[in-house]
């Protein structure tokens, strides 16, 4: 089961650039939450603060609190611990080219010490099924390298890889933006099915995508969160004029 995320007074910097300002956000468990906004508004930075990837950049800084379930991920846990519980799928698929499909999906588990062959086989199969990729690769699991798949398949494999470690939260940073429409719709179907078991946060440029998959949507602008509400409300009757301008395409 997924857990909820509580973000309080989150501020983030890249060097002198105040990228995120006073973000407060309750992200509900077992739902998909979409984050929309124009380029450079800080939504990717926000998501990277949720699994402490933001701080891998030496000039990055974060203040505020992020609670995932019971844990304040900055005060109560190490980055490594956080990332074990929070999975991430990146904008461009990044499979490990030197590993087979099987090894790719199992990599997170192996790092955590899983060595039981049978258990690994089971989890790899289950993760690939969850990611709707099993049927396409089940015969080539160990023969083909992770990088030899098509773009859409690679991304689904990366999703399987993230799911294999059984995270409580799944973060997706524009997961379909580098993919063709067919792969995109497959991934959207995937999110639809996954959200009942995980808490999903998805950053997207594509408003129609947000409308299709997410129950809640947050609109970011210039490092601030302008409005956060049910997706339906955001897209039909937004409270803030800026949100309305963005939705109707006046900018962005």
């Amino acid at each position, binding site marked *: 089961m997924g857990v909820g995320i509580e973000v309080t007074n989150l501020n983030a910097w890249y060097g002198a650039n105040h990228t995120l300002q006073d973000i407060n956000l309750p992200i509900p468990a077992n739902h998909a939450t979409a984050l929309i906004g124009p380029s450079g508004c800080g939504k990717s930075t926000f998501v990277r603060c949720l699994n402490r990837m933001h701080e*891998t950049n030496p000039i990055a800084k974060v203040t505020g609190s992020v609670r995932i379930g019971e844990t304040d991920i900055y005060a109560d846990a190490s980055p490594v611990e956080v990332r074990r519980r929070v999975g991430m799928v990146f904008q461009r698929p*990044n*499979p490990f*080219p030197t590993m087979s499909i099987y090894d790719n999906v199992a990599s*997170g588990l192996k790092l955590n010490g899983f060595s039981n062959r049978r258990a690994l086989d089971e989890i790899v199969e289950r993760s690939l099924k969850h990611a709707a990729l099993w049927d396409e690769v089940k015969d080539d699991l160990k023969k083909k390298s992770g990088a030899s798949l098509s773009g859409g398949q690679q991304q689904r494999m990366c999703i399987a890889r*993230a799911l294999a470690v059984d995270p409580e939260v799944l973060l997706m940073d524009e997961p379909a933006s580098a993919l063709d429409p067919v792969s995109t719709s497959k991934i959207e179907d995937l999110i639809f099915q996954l959200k009942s078991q995980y808490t999903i946060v998805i950053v997207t440029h594509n408003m129609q995508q947000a409308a299709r998959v997410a129950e809640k949507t947050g609109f970011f602008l210039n490092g601030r969160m302008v409005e956060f509400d049910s997706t339906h409300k955001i897209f039909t009757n937004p409270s803030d004029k800026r949100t309305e301008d963005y939705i109707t395409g006046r900018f962005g």
Partner: protein
Amino acid sequence: MLLCAISIFAIVALIAIELVLQSQMSWHKFGLPFFYKFNVDPDTHMPLFWDPVNGTFYALPFLYGTLVSSLVALAIAVPLAVGVAIFLTEMCPRFLRSPLSFLTELLAAIPSVVYGLWAIFVLIPLLREHINPIFIGIFNAPLTVKFFGWTGLVGDDGLFGGVNLGLGLLAAGVILAIMILPIIASLTREVMTSVPNSQREAVLALGATRWEMIRVAVLRNARIGIVGSIILGLGRALGETMAVAMVIGNNPEIHRSLLSTGHSMAAVIANEFSEATSDMHRSALVEIGLALFLVTILVNGLARLLVWAVTRGTPARVN
């Protein structure tokens, strides 16, 4: 312009042709056994490889010395160089990065003869008085001989047996290690840096520690190139002339001990060519040069291919 560029091919061809031509005399006389046969000294009953006065020219001791000193150099340099590369690429604080890499570049550019000079006056006494005795103590201790005598590597006939002069195979290996370290380190750095950041992020996002990230994302992806840079280091060690000539002892014999003096392919040419006593002598030296030429071309060619395979595009910067 094209002509100028083609000159590179011309140079290689010229070198190859001259080497082959000048070594004909020796090749015709000795053939392939040149590289492994030996005579026996009638007085001492010891193998006799290289005796210009009597016309005995067999090259095995030089092959042996070149190989042993290069292998010792690799054994010392590779772990250190890879460690430095990992530190500089993944762990080093920003402000240190530039000075350290500047230092590495400088060290790669120091002439061989200067390394040799330092080796004669600093390294050899250091080895003789402080470092070799440690190894001798460990390897030749009665207890060690008792338990490991069967390996043939300990005791007075072993790796550290015989007289401790300071110079010899070990000294050559050490100075070579110092000389090839910067090359291996900077090339390894280059291949490690060429691994895209998205790979690093992917591993980190799965909850890996930094070392695990380095192991899985960087080293694993770059391993072909790292092997290439090691082989390049080997190539440089094989051909090193001056520093080796100054510390290896210039003794055309084969002994098991690392403390013994020996010789190398490049060093014997350096030492004897200008004073060669006969045409056959000179021809034999050229034949050794030809062998050296072929070996280094092969090794360097292979290494460049491997590095190129990882970094793709213009191969590594000229060293």
